[in-house]
């Protein structure tokens, strides 16, 4: 159901400068994030190339890996394009309840790209 993915969805999220933004490639590796993401969650350039599961709690990782692998086979997911309240792990190991809005997009060279804005719901950056 690739037709469900909106072209330009990742770019649209990237434009939301007021919210933390992070993008992963088809392998689930972090490819980019914006300064707001660094400000709120403390992650720096060392996150680039790491698995996106690094920002998820331990108890989410099994499901994340299996869900990611399933997506590669089926190209369907119920998690995208919905605001989801999840826990985000900060660079210092603390956690922040955040509203994730995940999108997926197929690039012109037929590779998937995943991006999300994360709205912190608690702590000094809550919005």
């Amino acid at each position, binding site marked *: 159901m690739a037709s469900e993915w909106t072209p330009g969805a990742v770019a649209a999220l990237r434009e939301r400068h007021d919210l933390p933004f992070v993008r992963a490639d088809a392998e689930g590796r972090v490819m980019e994030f914006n300064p707001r993401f660094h400000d709120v969650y403390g992650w720096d350039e060392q996150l680039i190339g790491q698995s996106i599961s690094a920002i998820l709690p331990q108890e989410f990782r099994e*499901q994340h890996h299996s869900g990611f692998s399933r997506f590669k086979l089926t190209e369907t997911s119920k*998690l995208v394009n919905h605001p989801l309240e999840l826990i985000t792990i900060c660079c210092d190991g603390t956690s922040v309840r955040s509203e994730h809005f995940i999108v997926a997009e197929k690039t012109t060279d037929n590779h998937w790209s995943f991006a999300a804005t994360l709205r912190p719901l608690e702590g000094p950056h809550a919005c």
Partner: protein
Amino acid sequence: MPVDDSEKQESVQQDLLDQMRQSLGLLRVAFDSTDEAMLILDQKQTIRWANQKAADLCSKGMTALLLGKPLSKAIPFYSLKGELLPADAEQHPCQRFEDGDGTERLLIANNEDQSGSTSQTLSLLLWRQITNLREPFVLLIIRDLDPIEQALLKQRIFIQALAHELRTPLAILSGSLKRLSRIIQHDKRVLSNLETATSESRRVCNLVDKLMLLSDLDTGQFNWEIKETFLSEAFEEWRTSLPKEKAARITFRLDPKCLYAKIDREAFRLVLDQLLDNSLHFSDQKATVEISASLEDETVLIFFEDSGPGFTDTELAALSTIFERFKRLEQHRSKSRPEGSGLGLAIVHELMQGMGGHVEVELRSSRPEQMRQGGCLVLSLPFSGQASVASKSPGRGTR
């Protein structure tokens, strides 16, 4: 060359990773296609993994919303009577996992439908321990009962409710009949009728009590508390609970080797009560009973022998049905005594199964010549050793 080797190794690792991802994805597709809800819980009973059906059942289709939640908060479980089970209730799955693998029938609330209302579904829960990983997990499977089983369970719940409803008016009726017989002392004909009515109401009360017990067993409402028990103590406790005239009819012959068995004391007492009532009923209160116990292949065998009419070998086909409900042997019918409820041996059968044992009739032909009078029922229970008992604390009952 070292650079080539390194590249080659990296390529092999990438291939392996891709292969594993594909396998993981395929497994996930398969698990998401099943009609059973599957959840994997960690030691703290928080949800670590869930399939699509589990998410459809309790988190509006979003598996991610289930993760990290305690099971007790993610899924409300209800008893078959429709009462919400608190997380610390003995019947709640969270309290059962530590006992090992198991099953339970419970009601589960479905997600709100479009009208905003929730419904409850009769469900079969199965849990299995996963122990050979870095940390232990529990796999919980929730399956809708098939329509036939649902109908059967609903029927049993109905009987349970009906039996409860009948109990109060029957108690009032019995009390009123007793009071009437005290008031009317002069009219023998009326007194005789009152005696018949009292006897019949007692019989119906007894029947309702047995139906309630059976429906409790059928619907998982019986509070099992199975633990290693010193058998002699359990027998003695039962004997002292009996009226003197009944207790005087029993003798014990226990093999000292079979000291302990895993039983529920209340269930064990009920089994012996039913067997003794049967023996006395069919012998017009004249039978004597000998209870002996021996150990055979890690099984405790309890022989309940009486001097009553017993079972003849010519009725093998009928004998195979005596543990069914409302079955009575033709040879045991008599005009001189009221008919039994036909539920006593069915209760014995269910209670023994609940304790992990069973009951069977020992045929006369298989008994020694001098013991071919009367009847003999054999109760089998799992032997639980002797020495381990002192250091072990009682476990929770399982079914």
